[in-house]
C-alpha cells in the first residue's frame, strides 16, 4: 500500500466507494441472515452479498489493477460470471430441499404441494 502514493486520486476515491458499498451490502445481507425469523425469509438475505456485494468488490478490484498496473485486468469477470450463474441454482436446490423436508414432516408452516401432485398423477394416468 505504501508504494502507491502516486495512485490517482479519482481512482482511489472510486475504488474506495466501490469497496465500502460492496462490503456494506454483504454485511447487511449476512445481518439479515442472522436476524430473520423463518428459513424462507432467511434465504433471500445473503443474495445481497452475492449480487451487489460481489459486483462492487470485483469492480473495485478491476479498476485498481487496471489503473495501478497500467493494463486491463478483466479476469475478475470470471468470478462474477460464475457466482451470478451458480448462486440462483444452488439456492433454488436448497429451497426445494427445505420445502421437501418441511412437507415430509407436515409441521404445518408450509402449504401442501398442489401442482406437483397433479402433474405426477396425470403422468401415472398416461402410463
Amino acid at each position, binding site marked *: 500500500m505504501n508504494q*502507491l*502514493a502516486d495512485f490517482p*486520486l479519482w481512482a482511489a476515491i472510486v*475504488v474506495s466507494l466501490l469497496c465500502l458499498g460492496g462490503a456494506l451490502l454483504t454485511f447487511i445481507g449476512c445481518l439479515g441472515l*442472522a436476524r430473520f425469523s423463518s428459513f424462507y425469509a432467511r434465504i433471500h438475505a445473503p443474495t445481497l452479498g452475492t449480487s451487489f456485494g460481489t459486483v462492487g468488490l470485483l469492480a473495485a478490484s478491476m479498476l485498481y489493477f487496471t489503473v495501478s498496473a497500467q493494463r486491463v485486468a478483466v479476469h*475478475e469477470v470470471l*468470478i462474477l460470471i460464475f457466482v451470478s450463474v451458480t448462486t440462483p441454482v444452488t*439456492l433454488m436446490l436448497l429451497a426445494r430441499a427445505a420445502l421437501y423436508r418441511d412437507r415430509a414432516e407436515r409441521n404445518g408452516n408450509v402449504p401442501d404441494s398442489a401442482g406437483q401432485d397433479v402433474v405426477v398423477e396425470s403422468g401415472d394416468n398416461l402410463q
Partner: protein
Amino acid sequence: MSGEILFWSITISQVLLALAMLAASLRMIAGPRAQDRILALDAFYVAAMLMLILFGIRTGTSTYFEVALIVALLGCVGTVALAKFLMRGEVIE
C-alpha cells in the same frame, strides 16, 4: 493522500466483511435446522471470497485472486452437494 484513502477504506471494508462472517457463523451455530446451517455456510463462503479479493487489492498481487476463484468454485459445489444430501439422503446415487 490516495494511499491513505485506499488504506482506510479497505480496512473498514475488511472489518465489515469480518462482521458479516461473524453473523453468518452465529447463524451456523444457532440455526435451528440443517438447511439454515447450509445457507449460513454458503454466505460464509461468499464473504470469505470477497475478503480474499480485498486482501488482493491491499497487497497488490494477483495471487489472492486465484484463491478467491477456487473458493467460489468449491463453495458452490459444496452447497449443491449438501442440498442434494438433504433432498435425497445421498450425495451420489
